């Protein structure tokens, strides 16, 4: 084992003191750089698994009427391949890169919440294990990565695969939200002095914007997964007849699924925006447009999910609106492509490996965008949906853009992370193998799709053209596998024997290159002055610095308090979760249904208990005020009153549940009961979490460990408590009051 420590030490991954306990130095780390590397190594591990799954599928499809893989196994393979590549490869790899790079680019010591950061990372292996554990529990999920209802329901998928799939995605979703909250708070509160938001390097800016997309979109999926699990485990009918709606699952899934495409694409845009200028020796063309179009893309991506559902039959009116809004996305993405191309025009281009990957990503993304337009137009979409044309399209996005960009980023930042250069010769081999392999595999799939080959079939008859086209596609996959092997070999060999990199091997301009490679634990000993977007350029070219970017807005020079920012961000994310549950409640209860309904509820009693909860918002506010005025005893009193009132509310809810159970109303009685228990149950859970947080604060206060300067902790808990109350206002109105207005 000591050899491992020695090797890691030689690779710059351990300090001398840590060699004794090298395992713990990594497993218990809260350093953003190590967590970033752990993320990326995990992603690489799952990339190999997902890649092997893809190879099995391509081999099966190489010739017509192949019998290598039985249909059920094939279904599991494409489900696991898609889920793995998106949730366990693309997202962790990009979170890992961002974890490593963003704090460095903004001149911070670490992420805002290092332990939350470690928590977010460790959920990735947990999610991965849960997902793959399904194979030991009777068979993997075989429903496709979007697991359409009703196939995802017990009558059609009775084994545990879908349950583990949903649990895994839930865990991974929580991890993604936590790391994104961390990114937002880090960028807002941990920037070095003078690193204003308008001076952010584009990669950090895009991670910042992207994190909002994550905290808005992932909770929507989480709400859907929760409903699915309740359906499967508690025998209810959210997405299943009688009463339930399979379309509801599609809406929920794509309300998450479309932003998800951009959640993995926007960081890739960020990578291109860093690498292309450095290797063209020019500042990015139109920084403002690249930054601004990111906001437009994020905004539009939340608005257009229904274009995934043109073939469902939502009606011409719906289709028309979503054709128009989907086509609009072409404008901001076009702006980006133009800006990157214009950056290269007239530049002194250096075609090192990172640049090669990024230029290829740019061109391939352009193709992906063009085939994307044909999916945005409903009439064309009807012809190509669920054919290999679609498969080719999204692989051009996910591999052509995102994997190429990630590979570019790894070649670009590896010297910073390890202190050693990757071999340029092996890097070029990786690139050319990957380029040939990727295009060989996927270009021809467009034609296969147009020739009528549907996706997700385990084999096919020997139709004219299908055989040889599939063979070409499969042969391309082997080139990509070879590229992956060369890349891993390059990583390992360069870690041990690579050329020393120095601080700034690419002559880049952003702050991560202003420190040593690898950076010391505290990241920077000293920062250069920051007054533009390229501080290191200014530093080395004092006679012709970049124009100063001003600091007109007060919000740019001051940082908000980090706990408060984190709780507000968390509340935004929770609003998405509750929003879906409330909408589902309204949708399923729009018309009264046979069986239990709102008439089984006691408006008066619950109204009284609700008053207690609303009053607790007042008491916690008094508690904060008392702390601010330096009256610790009054603060404890008001805090205790808050806990008491919250406790009474929970007891009241418990009594109501007991009454319902006694009169024979259970969660699976009908859709009213299901949505009622789901919505109020999750709210009750949040009240309980709030109570635990309040009890911790109370305990600290009673132990005398709570000073005025800790007021932000109480404020943060107080904000969360107000949010829980506000949600109850909505839930109470929707569940108890609305039926009486009819």
């Amino acid at each position, binding site marked *: 084992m000591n050899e491992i420590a020695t090797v890691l030490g030689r690779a710059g991954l351990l300090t001398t003191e840590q060699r004794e306990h090298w395992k713990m130095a990594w497993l218990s780390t809260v350093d953003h750089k190590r967590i970033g590397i752990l993320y990326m190594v995990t992603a690489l591990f799952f990339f190999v698994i997902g890649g092997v799954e893809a190879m099995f599928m391509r081999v099966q499809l190489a010739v017509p009427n192949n019998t290598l893989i039985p249909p059920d196994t094939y279904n599991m393979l494409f489900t696991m391949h898609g889920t793995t590549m998106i949730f366990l490869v693309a997202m962790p790899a990009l979170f890992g890169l961002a974890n490593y790079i963003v704090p460095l680019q903004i001149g911070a010591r670490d992420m805002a919440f290092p332990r939350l950061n470690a928590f977010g990372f460790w959920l990735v292996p947990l999610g991965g294990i849960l997902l793959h554990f399904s194979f030991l529990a009777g068979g993997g999920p075989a429903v496709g990565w979007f697991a359409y209802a009703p196939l995802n329901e017990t009558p059609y998928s009775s084994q545990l695969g879908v349950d583990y799939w949903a649990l895994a995605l839930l865990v991974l979703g929580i991890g993604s939200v936590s790391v994104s909250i961390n990114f937002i708070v880090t960028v807002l509160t941990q920037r070095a002095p*003078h690193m204003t*938001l*308008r001076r952010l390097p584009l990669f950090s800016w895009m991670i910042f914007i992207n994190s909002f997309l994550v905290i808005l979109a992932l909770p929507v999926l989480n709400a859907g997964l929760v409903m699915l699990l309740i359906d499967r485990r508690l025998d209810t009918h959210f997405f299943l007849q009688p009463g339930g709606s399979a379309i509801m699952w599609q*809406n929920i899934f794509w309300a998450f699924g479309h932003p998800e495409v951009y959640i993995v694409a926007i960081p890739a845009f960020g990578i291109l925006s860093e690498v292309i200028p450095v290797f063209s020796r020019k500042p990015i063309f139109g*920084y*403002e447009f690249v*930054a*601004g179009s990111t*906001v*437009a893309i994020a*905004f*539009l991506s939340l*608005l257009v999910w229904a274009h995934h559902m043109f073939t469902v039959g939502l*009606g011409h*009116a*719906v289709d028309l*609106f*979503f054709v*128009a*809004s989907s086509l*609009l996305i072409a404008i901001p993405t076009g702006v980006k492509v133009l800006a990157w191309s214009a950056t290269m025009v007239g530049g002194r281009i250096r075609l090192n490996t990172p640049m090669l990957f990024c230029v290829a990503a740019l061109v391939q993304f352009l193709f992906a965008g063009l085939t994307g337009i044909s999916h945005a137009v409903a009439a064309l979409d009807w012809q190509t949906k669920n054919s290999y044309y679609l498969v080719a399209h999204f692989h051009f996005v996910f591999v052509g853009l995102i994997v190429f960009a990630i590979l570019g980023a790894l070649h670009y930042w590896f010297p910073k992370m390890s202190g050693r250069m990757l071999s340029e010769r092996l890097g070029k081999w990786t690139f050319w193998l990957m380029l040939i392999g990727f295009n060989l595999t996927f270009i021809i799939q467009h034609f296969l799709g147009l020739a009528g080959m549907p996706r997700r079939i385990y084999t096919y008859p020997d139709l004219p053209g299908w055989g040889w086209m599939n063979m070409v596609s499969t042969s391309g996959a082997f080139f990509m596998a070879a590229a992956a092997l060369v890349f891993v070999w390059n990583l390992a060999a360069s870690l041990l024997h690579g050329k020393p990199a120095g601080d700034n091997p690419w002559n880049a301009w952003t702050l991560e290159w202003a420190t040593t490679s690898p950076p010391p634990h505290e990241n920077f000993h000293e920062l250069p*002055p*920051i*007054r533009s977007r390229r501080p290191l350029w200014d530093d080395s070219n004092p006679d012709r610095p970049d*124009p*100063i*970017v*001003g*600091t*007109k*807005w*007060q*919000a740019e020079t001051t940082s908000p308090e980090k706990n408060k920012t984190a709780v507000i961000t968390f509340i935004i994310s929770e609003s998405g979760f509750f*929003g879906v549950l409330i*909408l589902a409640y*309204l*949708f399923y209860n*729009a*018309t009264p249904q046979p069986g239990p309904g709102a008439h089984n509820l006691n408006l008066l009693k619950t109204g009284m208990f609700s008053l207690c909860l609303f009053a607790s918002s007042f008491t916690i506010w008094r508690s904060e005020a008392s702390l601010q005025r330096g009256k610790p005893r009054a603060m404890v009193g008001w805090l205790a009153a808050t806990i008491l009132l919250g406790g009474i509310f929970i007891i009241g809810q418990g009594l109501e549940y007991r009454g319902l159970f006694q009169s024979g109303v259970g969660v699976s009685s009908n859709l009213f009961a299901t949505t009622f228990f789901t919505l109020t149950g999750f709210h009750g859970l949040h009240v309980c979490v709030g109570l635990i947080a309040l009890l911790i604060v109370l305990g600290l206060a009673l132990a005398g460990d709570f000073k005025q300067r800790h007021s932000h902790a109480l404020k943060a808990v107080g904000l969360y408590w107000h949010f829980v109350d506000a949600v109850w206002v909505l839930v109470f109105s929707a569940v108890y009051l609305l039926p009486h*207005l009819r």
Partner: protein
Amino acid sequence: MTTAQFILSGWTWNPVVLLTGACALVIYLAAFRDRRRIGWFTAALAVFLLTLLSPLNTLADGYLFSAHMAQHILLLLIVPALLLFSLPRTISLAVGPRVFSYPLFGWLAGTGAMWFWHAPAMCNAAVASRPVHALQTVSLVVLGSLFWRQILAPRDEERLSPPRAIFYLFSACVACSVLGIIITFSPVTVCSIYTMPMTDRLGLLHIIRTGWGFSPERDQQIGGLLMWVPMCLIYLTAILAQLARWFAQETGPATESI
């Protein structure tokens, strides 16, 4: 009646609306010596009059929920924005109660107007009763102005800073989208008065239902979609304008010391 005939004859010469427009013009001319921005005012007036006098108003008056929604958006988002543009840049809006200047108040005014007037009871009442309809029209313009003043106040210092403004606009978009989504996918009728025009006084129902293909369900869907998609695009346009304002600030050599 054919579509062409309807477009020619569907105009309502509502004297109250015309008088309101004339009064507004007189007030504008009397109040402001500086007439450089009168173009914006003319545009506001034109949109206002077109919304309330054109065939759109005839359709919204008991025939089509989606036409009502288009009116709603024009009155809440377009007319007030143009009015604020028309004010000379020196005017301060820091008048009236302090609460008017709170961002949360403006936000609630803009989104609350949407939710309040689409509660089924209010929506039906606004079509059935003239006074309620007048109140609705006035409230939309007033609430819309309160919403937009956070973004479009003539003086820069009375506007939200761009990052806050973007958050303000984005959350308003979400609040309206949620309602739009509810209306689009709701299995129940939001504004039942439109599904049974009490008297087809203009003989339009045939051309609307069969000529244009607006079944009551599709009509409600389009109404919801108008609120969901185009309305959000208006907010998006405002967000892009905020980004332009943010990035346009003195990026050249500045006097500040760092």
